[in-house]
């Protein structure tokens, strides 16, 4: 769907254009009609003036030239007359050698007649009776100058109208933008919500938006509660399964190792598998893939504690260095991020000879995590396999190979990327790139 702003803008502009065209066209039509009406009045007066110039002479009526408007004597002046009397036809000198076709009906002629010298003639025919003689007077006037001025007027009006239209369109755009401001504000707040910078949307919104805002807030709360509940349920399930598993494993170790070595191996393998499945399922279900204001990962608070946890868990001299504790809170859920980092570092510590380095950095809209170690690394040919299966490559080092599987599940949930390369420290470099909401 197109933007509401564009749709409003276009439809308002079209309606403005339509109204403008109709009103303009109507005004022009009315103007022209008025013009013709005035011209008709003038022509009627002209006909009367021609009649007035007919004076009785010795042999009936004669045309007294002196009484006529001088324009009728100037050739092709644009003002002409023809008088029909008793089969005689008198014409104004201004007609010169041109012929003026006479309209058939009395009154104003509806059509403009092309006249001499490119003129456009408006004709008027009338009948009089004078001294017992019938006479017909036809006067004509060049309408071209009026037409020209009319055209000029129309052009000027059109120009003015275009300017007004443009101004109105701008005003409209401004109004639309102003009208849509609450929507933009809501959109920004939703982005902040997604980025974990706020816990809920402001209720203080335009009345039309309030139901939407209320609903989004309700959904947000609902989601958080749901997540919380399922995480708790999972934790409980984990606890419920793991303690019996620990009991079984210990029993197995103490009593079966000597008495039934084969059974011991079988049981341990099965227990390992159950444990691995439980852990992976719990890990996958635990991924929140999104942070709220309360659950954001704060590097300054957690990174050192995490590093400390790892130093304690690995009983060997390890130089575990962390870069990036100065980063501001990130829009990644704390539990997810600690799970990612914990598993990656745990792997690195298992394999490292003595050096592990964690680097967190913000690169535009990406959060990059780099974990380096100085262990044996993974040959390039096997890296793809490790990423795909997240499986254990070497069983000599304690661990379950699940770390990477949980990491790839989490990274996938965030739409991020996981790559394995050579580390400058000599071992493996694991690099994560997670997109952060703006």
């Amino acid at each position: 769907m197109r933007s509401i702003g564009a749709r409003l803008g276009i439809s308002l502009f079209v309606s403005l254009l339509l109204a403008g065209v109709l009103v303009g066209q109507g005004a022009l039509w009315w103007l022209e009609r008025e013009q013709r009406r005035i011209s008709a009045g003038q022509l009627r007066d002209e006909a009367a003036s021609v009649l007035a110039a007919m004076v009785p002479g010795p042999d009936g009526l004669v045309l007294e030239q002196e009484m006529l408007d001088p324009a009728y004597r100037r050739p092709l002046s644009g003002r002409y007359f023809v008088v029909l009397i008793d089969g005689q036809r008198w014409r104004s000198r201004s007609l010169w050698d041109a012929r003026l076709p006479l309209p058939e009906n009395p009154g104003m002629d509806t059509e403009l007649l092309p006249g001499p010298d490119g003129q456009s003639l408006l004709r008027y025919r009338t009948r009089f009776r004078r001294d017992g003689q019938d006479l017909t007077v036809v006067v004509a006037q060049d309408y071209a100058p009026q037409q020209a001025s009319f055209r000029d007027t129309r052009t000027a009006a059109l120009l003015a109208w275009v300017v007004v239209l443009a101004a109105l369109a701008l005003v409209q755009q401004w109004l639309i933008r102003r009208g849509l401001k609450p929507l933009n504000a809501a959109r920004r707040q939703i982005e902040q919500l997604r980025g974990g910078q706020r816990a809920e949307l402001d209720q203080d919104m335009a009345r039309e938006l309030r139901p939407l805002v209320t609903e989004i807030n309700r959904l947000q709360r609902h989601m958080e509660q749901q997540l919380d509940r399922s995480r708790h349920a999972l934790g409980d399930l984990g606890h419920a399964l793991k303690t019996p598993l620990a009991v079984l494993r210990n029993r197995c170790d103490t009593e079966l190792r000597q008495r039934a070595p084969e059974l011991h191996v079988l049981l341990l393998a099965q227990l390992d598998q159950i444990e691995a499945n439980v852990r992976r399922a719990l890990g996958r279900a635990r991924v929140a893939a999104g942070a709220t204001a309360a659950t954001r990962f704060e590097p300054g608070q957690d990174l050192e504690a995490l590093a400390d946890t790892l130093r304690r868990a690995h009983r060997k001299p390890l130089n575990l260095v962390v870069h990036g504790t100065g980063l501001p809170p990130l829009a990644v859920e704390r539990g997810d991020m600690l799970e990612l980092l914990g598993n990656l570092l745990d792997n690195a510590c298992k394999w490292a000879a003595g050096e592990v380095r964690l680097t967190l950095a913000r690169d535009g809209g990406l959060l990059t995590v780099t974990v380096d170690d100085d262990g044996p690394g993974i040959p390039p040919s096997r890296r793809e396999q490790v990423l795909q299966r997240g499986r254990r490559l070497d069983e000599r080092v304690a661990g379950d190979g699940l770390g990477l599987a949980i990491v790839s599940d989490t990274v996938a949930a965030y739409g991020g990327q996981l790559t394995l390369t050579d580390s400058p420290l000599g071992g493996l470099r694991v690099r994560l790139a997670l997109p952060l909401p703006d």
Partner: protein
Amino acid sequence: MRLLLVEDTVALADQLLPLLRDHGYAVDWLADGRDALVRAHDDDFDLVILDLGLPGLDGLEVLRRWREQGLSMPVLILTARDSWAERVDGLRAGADDYLTKPFHPEELLLRVQAVLRRSHGSANQSRLRACGVELDEERQSAWLDQQEIELTGAEFRMLRYFMLNPGRLLSKIALSEHLYDGESERDSNVVEVHINRLRRKLGGQVIHTRRGQGYLFTGRG
């Protein structure tokens, strides 16, 4: 070494108690968080193994309150909550180590040993060394001048406690409190008997007696 195990799963506790006792620890066992909160004040425990999902009061809350009340004994959390966020929270609450279930019994013993040594300021080596004496906790035997000296369980427990507190004056009561759990009968003569036996095996100058005050481990240096 006197340990407190706080674990509500009876089956697991039933396995851990003999395991720990076999390795020379005196262990008291509690299953309820509220009991643990109070009990830690009554006895001077060298280490607490703490489950988190406890009836009565959550283990993490128990730990937080202990630390607020100024109790500083080392605490090892033993729990099924295995997410890294929970581990970080555990250490933040004041735990010294965090072990997740299911676990290998040897792993637990190693962690207990490591936490104990760390809390007494010893480096984490395969053998415990103090004042020219070495102690192999696996084999429960002492080494002097590259010579292995076998010890009985009671002698081993006492020597380990001395070696983790070298140069510190330990009273007879303190010794018996740290070497026997709440159910054992305490007899101050027993302490004296074991000290004499240790002197016979390692040389008389190893443990110094201060009349009326207690004993001092000086080793050979």
